[in-house]
């Protein structure tokens, strides 16, 4: 590719090319779809695995085309395993508190050091896994890792910082009460799972107020342990130098910790399909969230569910969006998904619907949810497109050091084998039409759905009732019955 380095000579060459006759153009039949070239090849990155002296697993994947390194320290288990019900929000506050100072650097010193390295260390804890990490240039990798290690091992958790972070979270919580999407994101899981299940427990003013500095210190110590951690380094490093650098930086991290228990409490008893209406006076749109608890990621039906959801609501031309947005013009976009994880993550279909047509949209949502369960047969083209959409997106996943690190990390948090990506195409392509109908019926229970609608009650309640689809229960914006 020497020519690319010499744009001037290229321009001359190209000019010469365009002076050639254009006979080919006159024969161009624009109605003919250009056929694809030879199928592209899936190139999954390779990686090495070893164990650090702390007991954490270390995975290294090399990519040397750019001077970049991605580092992530992944912890198996998350807020749903480690956070008490009356302390929801503790995991998130703890992750933030790790930027507030160490034994030798206060919060400003940490911030200054990271800014001068041109990067930032991010820490976050989700429902069933958490992570600390960064991307740096190759030359800044060791120095940035030293700062991350300092935050991991030597944080001092100053009490005034906790009060400040808590106050900021309270403002955000209050501000979100004006945002229809945010209201739906809180009410929907609460309705589906109930407050006895971690998926239905919310961070509130009360849980935030209850969190003490002692809670933060104890949580950090109990949670961030190498026995349940996987360290992934991807990019411009070798396995040997990566291991030496990581061992040195994390030398002060005491061994301990085991794999968490991922059992979840029983789900609440099923209730007949119900509309839960949250009043948002004057709202221009109604925010819909329709669904039920779903299967965990390790269900044997995973691949069939992926294909089924892709044709139902995973793509732009999926049934839901093709109907409700493109054909009926009721929304800017609707979609559906399964929240696959360790526990029974929700199936959810929804989107924002023009208020005056909320009833029409509900009828169409229900029609499509029943349709994929058998009343509207899957066509050969739908099946083929959904499969190829999933399988052929895989080669593009491994483009950046952080996406490679994330792809390896997902295998760990989801408990998948090392050859998962190599086997993915075969697994998806084995799905049949009969599988799709079966999993749709089994996992989208149209007789026991929760239909959460955040919108202008005065406009939408009577028309929704008139559809006869389900009784209406009015909730407040916290998801409590009025």
């Amino acid at each position, binding site marked *: 590719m020497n*020519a*690319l*380095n010499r744009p001037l000579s*290229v*321009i001359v060459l190209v*000019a010469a090319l*365009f002076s050639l006759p*254009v006979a*080919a*153009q006159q024969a*161009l039949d624009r*109605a003919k*779809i*250009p056929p*694809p*070239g*030879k199928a*592209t*090849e899936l*190139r999954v990155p390779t990686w090495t695995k070893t164990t650090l002296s702390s007991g954490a697993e270390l995975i290294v994947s090399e990519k040397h*085309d*750019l001077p970049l390194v991605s580092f992530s320290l992944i912890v198996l288990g998350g807020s749903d395993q480690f956070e008490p019900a009356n302390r929801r929000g503790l995991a998130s506050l703890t992750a933030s508190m790790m930027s507030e100072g160490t034994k030798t650097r206060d*919060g*400003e010193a940490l*911030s200054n050091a990271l*800014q*001068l390295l*041109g*990067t930032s260390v991010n820490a976050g804890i989700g429902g069933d896994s958490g992570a600390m990490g960064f*991307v740096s*240039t190759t030359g800044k990798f060791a120095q940035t890792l030293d700062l991350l290690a300092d935050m991991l091992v030597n944080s001092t958790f100053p009490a005034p910082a906790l009060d400040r972070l808590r*106050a900021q979270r*309270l*403002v955000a919580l209050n501000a979100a009460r004006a945002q229809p999407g945010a209201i739906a994101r809180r009410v929907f899981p609460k309705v589906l799972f109930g407050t006895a299940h971690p998926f239905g427990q919310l961070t509130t003013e009360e849980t935030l107020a209850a969190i003490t500095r002692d809670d933060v210190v104890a949580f950090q110590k109990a949670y961030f342990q190498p026995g349940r951690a996987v360290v992934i380094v991807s990019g411009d490093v070798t396995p040997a130098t990566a291991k030496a650098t990581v061992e040195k930086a994390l030398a002060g991290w005491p061994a301990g910790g085991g794999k968490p228990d991922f059992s979840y409490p029983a789900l609440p008893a099923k209730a007949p399909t119900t509309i839960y209406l949250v009043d948002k006076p004057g709202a*221009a*749109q109604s925010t819909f969230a329709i669904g039920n608890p779903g299967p965990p990621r390790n269900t044997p039906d995973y691949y069939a569910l992926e294909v089924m959801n892709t044709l139902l609501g995973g*793509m732009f*031309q999926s049934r839901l969006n093709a109907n409700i*947005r*493109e054909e009926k*013009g*009721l*929304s*800017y*976009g609707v979609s559906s998904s399964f929240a696959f994880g360790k526990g029974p993550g929700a199936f959810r279909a929804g989107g924002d619907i*023009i208020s005056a047509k909320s009833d029409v949209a509900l009828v169409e949502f229900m029609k499509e949810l029943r349709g994929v369960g058998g009343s509207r047969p899957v066509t050969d083209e739908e099946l083929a*497109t959904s499969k*190829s*959409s*999933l*399988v*052929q*997106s*895989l*080669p*593009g*996943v*491994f*483009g*950046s050091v952080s996406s490679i690190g994330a792809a390896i990390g997902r295998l760990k948090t989801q408990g998948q084998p090392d050859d998962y990506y190599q086997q993915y195409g075969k697994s998806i392509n084995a799905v049949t039409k009969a599988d799709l109908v079966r999993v749709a019926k089994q996992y989208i229970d149209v007789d026991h759905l929760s239909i959460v609608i955040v919108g202008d009650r005065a406009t939408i309640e009577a028309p929704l009732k008139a559809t006869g689809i389900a009784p209406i229960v009015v909730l407040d914006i916290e998801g409590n019955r009025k």
Partner: protein
Amino acid sequence: MPTPCRKFAWIALVALSCVAAAQRPPSVAPPGSDTIRIPFESYTLPNGLTVILSTDRTTPTVAVNLWYHVGSKNELPGRTGFAHLFEHIMFTGSGHVPYGLHDRLTEGIGGSNNGTTSNDRTTYFEIVPSNYLESALWIEADRMGFLLDTLDLAKLNAQRDIVKNERRQGVDNQPYGKVTEILARATYPADNPYSWDVIGSMEDLSAASADDVKTFFRTYYATNNVFLAIVGDFDSAQVKAWVTKYFGDIPRGKPVVRPTVSTVTLPGERRFSYEDRVQVSRLYIQWPTVGEKSDDHYALDTLGSILAGPRTARLTKALVYDQQAAASVSAFQGTNEDVGEFMVTITPRPGHTLTGLEAVADGIIERLKAEGPTAEEIQKATAGQELTFVRGLESNLGKAMGLSDSAGLHGDPGHYKIDLQKSMAVTAADVKRVANTYLTKGRIVLSVVPAGKPDEASKPAESTKVTGAEDTPRPEVKR
């Protein structure tokens, strides 16, 4: 300022690009560096279409980006929102490509597509497995050459409804959603095409006709107003042949007449308060600054990160950390082609007033204007630019957008390097100068307060109440 686009957050990458792509190419590579760069070649077809090619074989995928030099600033009064509505129509099929096939030949084979509209330009992209590059070029050429063959009123009406829903979702039904259009109206006089927001008004969207679509297409969607960037895993000679085959015989159009945009200087402070369906008050301060054509935007970018962001930034440190009077603060320069704005946003903690926060923020800004930033502040503000640039090299789409932004706005796909050099060269004296030049009394101060609580505004007695862009008084024209 979010950029309307065809789809909402279908994948994270797309969502990111809708929001971020409009204003700047990915910033910068270290000056003099030979390995950290985007290798490209560029040429122009006889019909005026500019082509930019850059190979990257990291993954077997290709990004195609078409950059049309038309945006909301080319709209006529009474037709605000039209450039974006037109973008939607570009996805409804064309002469030889029936509706739906575009999606099947992108997301249906593991790729994606989307369009974005800003004040200045409209972009369309595909990301496809590399063996589907030819069909992606065929689709783009067909809508560039033959969109009107299949246009009818039904298509226009369908997209009009969808775009109105996009406005409801992004503006009317969002807390603080109308701030962008209120600020635009308050800052720019009526004859300035930056005085309305890209999404447009419901009334104007209703008024758009099929004839408007035809005229707009013929005026702005001609080959001589387009930049085509192709980045990824392809054979250069093969791609050049395809580009000639599909785009070569599309006729050029008349030279495009660009709007004349006068520099805006506000003679004094303009204060407004807006009662919105929000729970928490928020203060917005906006100064008109400069666009892409003035180098001052580099120092204004640096000023933004010295004022807010990291905990050591001046406003953040004082308001959020030391005084604990604010829950959050932001400050940044937004750069469009002809104009720019510097905006500070402050969200208070309970017990603290917007009036008080404005006074404290003003004091900090005045001190920076008097003293200038420290050498370490400059160093911290620029230290992250190399990493940001190198990470940008990991995305084919990011590179395609950066190359076409550079070509479209500056006439040189390689302008991103100049951007880097100028950005890295910003000095403390530059920052002090631009702070004094632009952060003056000529500014907009907008308080957004919960309905029924007008007294929560900053200096409520001196602030004019508005209910949206429609009744926001325009600035007096100073020529």
